[in-house]
């Protein structure tokens, strides 16, 4: 009897238990969350945190408290009350600058301290960017306590206010009264280095980024007004800057002294911007500018500490010396850059763009190169045309590499250097600077061949560089071939 009862009870309990479990609804279970953090939004959470009450006040003052109550998610980097003590009162008392100031602490979507990327470049609500590096560095501030979460995002408490910084171009503009180099760079808003720049200036629309489109430096070197990317810029003090420009003046002689100074400055400064932000420790041993100029930074010439900008790093330098033989880079024209022209429509198909291999070279690209060749011609003096920009006012030594691996005999070709003086009714008026003698093209010679030299009295573009075939109509005697031309400037 007792046994029966207990067995029966056990079974009953088991059945009840099973039915209980199967009746509970997981849907209802998921609803109840006891996390109180999720009951308040970011604005409330920051206000309720004792270290960040000052910043919370500013949120209200600037109206950003309303934004942080929204249902989007945000990350806020909230400075501590001590950090806020150090902020200039002028910023806080001006509603405009206050808005910018507060906005620079807030970004859309949630970024916890542990993320996939080592560095995330965050666009703040101020439109400026800050780098979130590792788990605890944002811009130049450190996170003192991280990953406070609320219903609509995350906030980190930081030890330094993150007021919006100038970008490199804004900084340059702010120094135009006191720095010769800055003044020159800003003057390129009006002065055009290349004819295309003038066109850009005409069509540029007004606005805060107008400079980016029309300033000759920003257009041709790097757009230092771009907040999205990061740059390194070397800004020389007047003495060092003037000395470097003076060195360049001989090589950039123009018709007027003014123009000479402008171009000498431009060709000095175009190497001073780099497309990456380097801290002092990261500065590479040897710097290569986008124009192929190499130089070293003498760290003893750095004035003070590098200035952290919203889009990179700016170094004030006493001077940046670049050796002339590095500064004056050779001009190389690839043979295959010539176009089929309308001058000889019947012979255009004779111009062949070839893929070749230099058997003497190995890795990395196994000697692959492209060239151009013209052969089986029945016309004398067939011509291939080239042009190149930015020749210096100096003497050039000229070399070519030309591969004759098709004709059984040696043929000869010549080079002519000229420029276009004016264009009237689609006709180019030209001035010939130098016509070289015919040079034989030996068979299967993969070496550079010295052609001769010519001198420019004025720095300029050369729009008319011609490779001319032999003066003969016999096929096999008047071929042309060219891998590249190399113009090596001579140091005076």
């Amino acid at each position, binding site marked *: *009897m007792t*046994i*029966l009862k207990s*067995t*029966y009870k056990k*079974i009953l309990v088991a059945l009840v238990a099973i039915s209980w479990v199967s009746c509970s609804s997981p849907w209802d279970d998921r609803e109840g969350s006891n996390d109180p953090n999720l009951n308040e939004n970011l604005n409330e959470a920051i206000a309720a945190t004792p270290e960040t009450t000052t910043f919370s006040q500013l949120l209200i003052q600037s109206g950003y408290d309303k934004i942080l109550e929204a249902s989007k998610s945000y990350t806020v980097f909230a400075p501590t009350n001590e950090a806020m003590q150090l902020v200039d009162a002028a910023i806080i008392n001006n509603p405009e600058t206050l808005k910018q100031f507060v906005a620079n602490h807030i970004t859309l979507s949630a970024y916890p301290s542990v993320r996939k990327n080592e560095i995330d470049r965050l666009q703040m609500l101020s439109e400026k960017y800050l780098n979130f590096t590792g788990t605890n560095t944002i811009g130049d501030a450190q996170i003192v306590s991280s990953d406070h979460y609320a219903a609509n995002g995350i906030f980190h408490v930081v030890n330094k206010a993150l007021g919006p910084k100038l970008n490199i171009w804004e900084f340059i503009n702010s120094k135009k009264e006191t720095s010769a180099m800055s003044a020159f760079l800003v003057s390129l808003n009006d002065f055009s280095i290349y004819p295309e720049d003038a066109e850009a200036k005409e069509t540029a629309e007004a606005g805060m980024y107008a400079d980016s489109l029309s300033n000759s430096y920003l257009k041709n070197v790097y757009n230092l007004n771009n907040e999205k990317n990061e740059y390194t810029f070397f800004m020389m003090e007047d003495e060092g800057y003037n000395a470097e420009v003076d060195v360049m003046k001989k090589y950039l002689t123009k018709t007027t002294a003014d123009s000479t100074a402008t171009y000498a400055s431009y060709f000095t400064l175009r190497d001073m911007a780099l497309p990456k932000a380097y801290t002092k420790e990261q500065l590479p041993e040897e710097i290569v500018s986008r124009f192929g100029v190499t130089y070293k930074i003498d760290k003893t010439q750095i004035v003070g500490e590098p200035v952290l900008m919203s889009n990179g790093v700016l170094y004030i330098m006493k001077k940046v010396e670049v050796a002339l033989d590095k500064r004056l880079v050779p001009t190389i024209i690839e043979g295959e850059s010539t176009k089929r022209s309308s001058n000889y429509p019947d012979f255009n*198909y004779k*111009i*062949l*763009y*070839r*893929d*070749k*291999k230099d058997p003497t070279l190995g890795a990395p690209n*196994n000697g*692959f190169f*492209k060239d151009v*060749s013209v052969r089986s011609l029945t016309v004398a003096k067939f011509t291939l045309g080239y042009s190149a920009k930015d020749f210096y006012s100096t003497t050039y030594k000229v070399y070519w590499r030309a591969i004759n*691996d098709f004709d059984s005999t040696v043929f000869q070709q010549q080079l002519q250097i000229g420029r276009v003086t004016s264009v009237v009714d689609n006709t180019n008026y030209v001035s010939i600077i130098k016509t070289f003698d015919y040079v034989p093209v030996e068979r299967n010679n993969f070496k550079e061949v010295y052609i001769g030299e010519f001198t420019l009295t004025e720095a300029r573009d050369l729009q008319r560089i011609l490779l001319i075939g032999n003066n003969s109509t016999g096929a096999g005697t008047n071929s042309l071939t060219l891998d590249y031309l190399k113009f090596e400037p001579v140091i005076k």
Partner: protein
Amino acid sequence: MMTTIKKQTPKQAKTFLCAMVLAFGLNACSDYLDVAPEDKLIEEQMYQNVYDADAAVIGIYGKFMNLAEKYVVLNEMRADLMSTTYNSTPYLEQLSEHNVSDDNPYINPKDFYIVIQNCNDALLHFDQMLAEKRFTQSEYDQRYADIGCLRTWVYLQLGIHFGNVPYITKPVENLDDLKNPNLFPKLAFPQLLDELLKFTENLNYKKMYASGSSLLVTVDGFNTEKFFINKECLLGDLNLWKGNYLQAASYYKNVMESTPTGGANTLDYYRVKQAEVVTNDDLAVGYLRDYWEDATTLVDSDTKGWRSIFGRSRDVLWNTEWVWSLPYTSNFAPANPFINLFSKTGGSYMAKPSQRAMDLWNSQVQQNKFPYDARGPKFTYKMNGNDPVIKKYIYKFEAAADPFNKDGEWMLYRAAKLHLRYAEAANRDKQHKIANALLNLGINNAYTPADYVAGSSVADIQQTKEPFPYDFDARTGDYPYFRGPWHRGAGLRGRARLNALPVVGDSLISIENNIIDEAALELAYEGNRWEDLMRVALRRNDPAFLADKIYEKLSKDNNPHASEVRSKLMNVNNWYLPFVWK
């Protein structure tokens, strides 16, 4: 209630409870729930007539397509032409380094046996249908042979990769029993090959489906003719593995001569045709006419030239090259696995050409002296930034310019492979000159004497004058007029605008080496490489033939395990994957 129980003995009560539980439990399974489904066929309703048989055939090919990715990955990643990328899974790296773990998803033999089980089931039912006269003897023969050959093909792959595998030809109750060697003993690869040959040679029907067959239709917008396995190609391959070279060459030659009667492509079908220099409407490496030495005029198009073998739609020219190819379309399962495997922009980019493969292409010199074989760097792969991307499988996807349109092909057999395999057999059958001609510049070129004066009669030259399967007539002459059936045959290297390869030392070995090298250049990533290397290495009893090539791949890719892998592969037993049933 309590009183009732109280009156009973404890034992009775327990029994009563148990009975109740059982009654309810059994009741749940009772027949009244067993309603015949209204939207599915049950087994007895299948296989009523020839159309049901056709549905079974098409269904099996659908299942078969699930093997595509494994086929390509196993045959290429284990061999010397394909490497892993920074995106590759560890499982792909394991295959490349010949050191697989049991959980590697590419090596589950069950996937192959699922198709085999489907084949066995269909074959059994075909027998029953024939016995019950539900379709004709001829309808039976064709379908039975098709599915039988497909099963043989799957077994051949199993043998190549796993070495010892169970050979079952009847459906089994529980497929998982196959992992029990006591129930299903394993056959070694040579014995398996004998079984496969015996079964396949004994089939009553060895041609493609006869014209007018209900299986030659348009399905999902595709003509089905090239969906089905080419039985004679399979028989050629089996005989080539076995060493029956004359037999292999005969089967291959039958396919090479399977020209459709009449029509524009009578002289082009499976003959590896020369270039059309004026129109470039061909499958050759070509440049614009008159710009022959201008690299910028390379015919690089989905509708013209060599690249169009992979990019063009199933048109007349496509049919002259492709013997067997199964299409993927976004509208129907199974999904195309190759976009994800190869594409960098539309997929995961998990496989790329090995440095060794790229060096092979870039060490060739074309007839126009360009220092590469355009089939490699221009067509088979292209550089995307610093990454070489295998393009053969993604031309159609890229042409569609729609990330959701993942059309493509599982490329299984084409004329180039047919010619290379035929040449391999012919070479071993002492027909070196013919093998070398098909590999290089074609019969016409090889059989035109050096002292031939242009314009004189070709009546007695430009032909092999051998009996079947070595009979080729490639005469091209005007006085008297000759256009032999093979006069447009360019040879494989001729079609690729390369010069003939020299024969150095022993003709047999030299030509065979050249054939295998050419297979790399022409057929890379189409899933033939591992079996090509393995077949020749086994035939020569020379494991180094295979091991050295894989060593070179790994060492050129700077893989630290290169030497280790080489010594491992010097033992034939290590070529096979573990038979780990999952």
